[in-house]
């Protein structure tokens, strides 16, 4: 039996249409008009215990609706969903005791209180036995070096410190699933690495199933083997990251800082995308021309200050995926 | 001249339009105030049923007094300007110092809109309803109406001056509420909103006469119903004027102290 089963989940929202002006407001009182939006349109997937899956898609695509259904906040219109055999919305409380959720944008800790007191309160909220609690807390503290932060009020923590504490807070009750929503948003480079490292260890060493929603492609690249892309409420793609990229686009970006502003780069294997000042964005297909060959060719021909190769940004992959799906 | 007053009128009208947007809230507040007024009228009716001794006010006058109070409730300086409070909390109040305007006048304008806009929304429909159905009397005479309007203008200025002072005090207390917690029930009481001031014992009248709060509700209301005769209207207006001058001067002084403190401590 899969750890998480999502089968044909449909969720629609009705949004009241407002008309402008006083007359519109009066009209709205008498007869409301609704527009329905399909937030989730027959979404299905399965996760095995210990999987770490990246769940990506643009804002409004249905990511957070999925997480809300899985965590029992929202009741879907139809479809089947189970975590460890529990139906989240029907067993909200027992499901909640089994999952952990971290929102990068919002803390679940108590703003005015020292960190340790938030932890203590969570112990009581989650009915954690005191022995288990101390063991879990000390272990998490050792992994993320939390002890120095115990007595600091949450409002005085830096974003990175806060995120470490939030991760610990979501794990005190030893959940078997962890939902992470933008866990690295706004963090400095060092904290990002620390958080990613921790998530990876959590997944590898303890077998916690992790669902990671993020806009940061580096998170996905660093952490997950499997990537699900959602758009318009439908799962557009469910595969490894490399497969996804290979399927959608093989192209790479070549970004060049020229020494001389007036120059134009011409090469049969690259296409020009944009230019600002002496920075030029180009695109090429590594299957047609090996990256190393292209670079040496160009550096030989032009006066170049700096040069680097990038994968196309996630937004572009998604939008290509969209184009692809709307074309069909 | 026009370019001189422009910033102040602009903030006033922008604020006005913003507050007017919350229609539903205004309707809800409207119903609330009718319910509240009805309760108070019924209680006063019961008190008047309990005695046949002559009272300093007739019941009809008390009823009118209560409805006027409900209609003009928004004018009471019971809380600091909420926008200024938000600015103090977030620390953006320092930017106010950068504006090329007289800060006191600027705050006075915005506080005046803060007091007037919601009152406008509620007072007219409420007064109409109370006049038609709930036993509120029309003004005693055309003269009374004129003096009442003049005194109401005085009340607006008085109330705004007090609101600005309350807002300025926020700059001293960290949590940004402080003094207004204490002051607002007292103002509410002394203006005549708990019970009409003429019903207080005679010895209290002398104190109430001196304080500025009578000028916000009690005195204008009684001009309206002719309880204060038109011949004495000048005394009410003079009393208001004196207090407006005092409170504006005090407010401006307080603000200069507050800003100096802000500059020295860096917010």
């Amino acid at each position, binding site marked *: 039996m899969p750890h998480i089963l999502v089968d044909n989940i449909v969720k629609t929202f009705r949004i009241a249409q407002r008309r402008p002006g006083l007359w519109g407001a009066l009209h709205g009182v008498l007869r409301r008009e609704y527009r329905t939006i399909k937030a989730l349109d027959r979404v299905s997937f399965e996760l095995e215990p210990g999987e770490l899956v990246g769940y990506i898609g643009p804002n409004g695509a249905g990511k957070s609706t999925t997480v809300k259904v899985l965590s029992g906040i929202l009741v879907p219109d139809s479809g089947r969903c189970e975590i460890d055999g529990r139906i989240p919305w029907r067993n909200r409380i027992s499901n*909640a005791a089994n999952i952990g959720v971290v929102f990068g944008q919002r803390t679940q800790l108590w703003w005015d209180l020292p960190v340790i007191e938030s932890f203590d309160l969570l112990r009581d909220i989650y009915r954690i036995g005191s022995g288990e609690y101390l063991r879990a807390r000390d272990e998490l503290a050792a992994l993320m070096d939390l002890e120095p932060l115990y007595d600091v009020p949450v409002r005085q923590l830096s974003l990175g410190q806060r995120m470490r504490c939030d991760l610990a807070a979501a794990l005190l009750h030893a959940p078997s699933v962890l939902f992470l929503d933008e866990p690295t948003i706004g963090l400095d480079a060092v904290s990002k690495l620390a958080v990613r490292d921790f998530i990876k260890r959590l997944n590898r060493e303890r077998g916690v199933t992790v669902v990671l929603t993020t806009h940061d492609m580096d998170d996905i690249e660093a952490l997950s083997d499997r990537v699900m892309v959602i758009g318009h409420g439908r799962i557009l793609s469910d595969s490894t990251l490399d497969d996804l990229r290979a399927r959608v686009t093989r192209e790479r970006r070549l970004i060049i800082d020229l020494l001389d502003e007036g120059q134009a780069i011409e090469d049969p294997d690259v296409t020009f995308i944009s230019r600002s000042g002496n920075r030029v964005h180009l695109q090429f297909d590594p299957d047609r021309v090996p990256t190393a060959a292209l670079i040496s060719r160009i550096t030989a021909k032009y006066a170049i200050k700096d040069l680097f190769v990038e994968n196309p940004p996630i937004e572009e992959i998604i939008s290509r995926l969209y184009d692809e799906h709307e074309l069909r | 001249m026009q370019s001189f007053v422009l910033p102040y009128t602009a903030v006033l009208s922008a604020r006005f339009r913003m507050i007017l947007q919350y229609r539903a809230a205004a309707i809800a507040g409207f119903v609330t105030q009718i319910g509240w007024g009805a*309760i108070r009228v*019924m209680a006063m009716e019961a008190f008047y049923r*309990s*005695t046949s001794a002559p009272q300093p006010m007739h019941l009809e006058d008390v009823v009118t007094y209560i409805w006027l109070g409900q209609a003009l409730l928004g004018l009471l300086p019971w809380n600091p300007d909420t926008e200024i409070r938000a600015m103090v909390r977030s620390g953006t109040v320092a930017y106010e110092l950068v504006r090329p305007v007289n800060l006191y006048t600027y705050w006075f304008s915005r506080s005046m809109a803060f007091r007037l806009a919601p009152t406008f929304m509620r007072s007219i429909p409420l007064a109409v309803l109370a006049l038609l159905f709930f036993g509120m009397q029309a003004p005693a005479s055309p003269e009374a109406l004129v003096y009442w309007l003049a005194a109401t203008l005085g009340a607006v200025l008085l109330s705004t001056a007090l609101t600005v002072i309350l807002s300025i005090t926020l700059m001293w207390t960290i*949590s940004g509420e*402080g003094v207004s917690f204490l002051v607002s029930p007292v103002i509410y009481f002394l203006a005549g909103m708990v019970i009409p001031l003429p019903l207080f014992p005679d010895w209290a009248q002398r104190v109430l006469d001196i304080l500025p709060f009578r000028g916000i509700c009690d005195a204008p209301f009684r001009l309206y119903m002719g309880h204060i005769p038109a011949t004495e209207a000048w005394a009410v207006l003079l009393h208001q004027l004196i207090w407006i001058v005092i409170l504006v001067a005090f407010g401006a002084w307080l603000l200069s102290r507050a800003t100096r403190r802000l500059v020295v401590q860096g917010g």
Partner: protein
Amino acid sequence: MANPLALYSHYVSISLRSQMQYRVSFLLGTLGQLFSTGVEFIGILALFDRFGSLNQWTLAEVAFFYGIVNVAFAVTDMLSRGFDHVGQLVRSGEFDRMLLRPRSTVLQLIGQEFTLRRLGRFGQGAGVLLWATLYLDIAWSPSVAALIVITVCCGACFFLGLFINIGTVSFWTTETLELMNVLTYGGIEASKYPLAIYHTWFRRFFTMVIPMGCVTYFPVVAILGRSDPLGTSLAFQYAAPLFGLLYFILSLFIWRLGLRHYRSTGS
């Protein structure tokens, strides 16, 4: 392992410590509460000074009504802050966080804040109640003493029910919330005086639709040991507080409906 009560006391201790971080604000807030209920009572004193009695009810009797409703309401007021903020919590996503936790939403909302500054109202109400008790000639018996305790408890439950209603309504709309103030604060305002002084429609509404009279009037008549001008029996007066409790239970039920609506619409 924390049972609901242990968890609740943990919430309380945390809330108290957060409030103690802003000690000045807490002190001013408490004093402000004391003032705002205090001026109301001074108003009552002034009216009795003027009118002598209120339809055969003495000052001490009215003070007893006033005291008991304020004590009961103050208890609720300390617990119910969270329900006042449901709309805000929904918008900020905090409410979803509550649903993510393996506890009932009602318990978590009550645990949101233990508003200590309401002690001001509590203290004032208790003081007036004590004064009235000493002054009145109450025929003490175990059943009267029990009735006082039951009335306060059922009263607090009833008012909590009203606040839960406010929270429930905000699953649908937050624009008209002020309307609910007629029921809560308007009800308190009305309950300062015995229900018997009000018009029939008003009494019926606050007995049969919203059973406020059942916790603030009928049992108090029995405690005072006088005959009810409304002609109810002693047995009913003793049983009446249970309707307050019933209302509370009904409110919890309606809350669940609201929660179901929220969880199916997410808005």
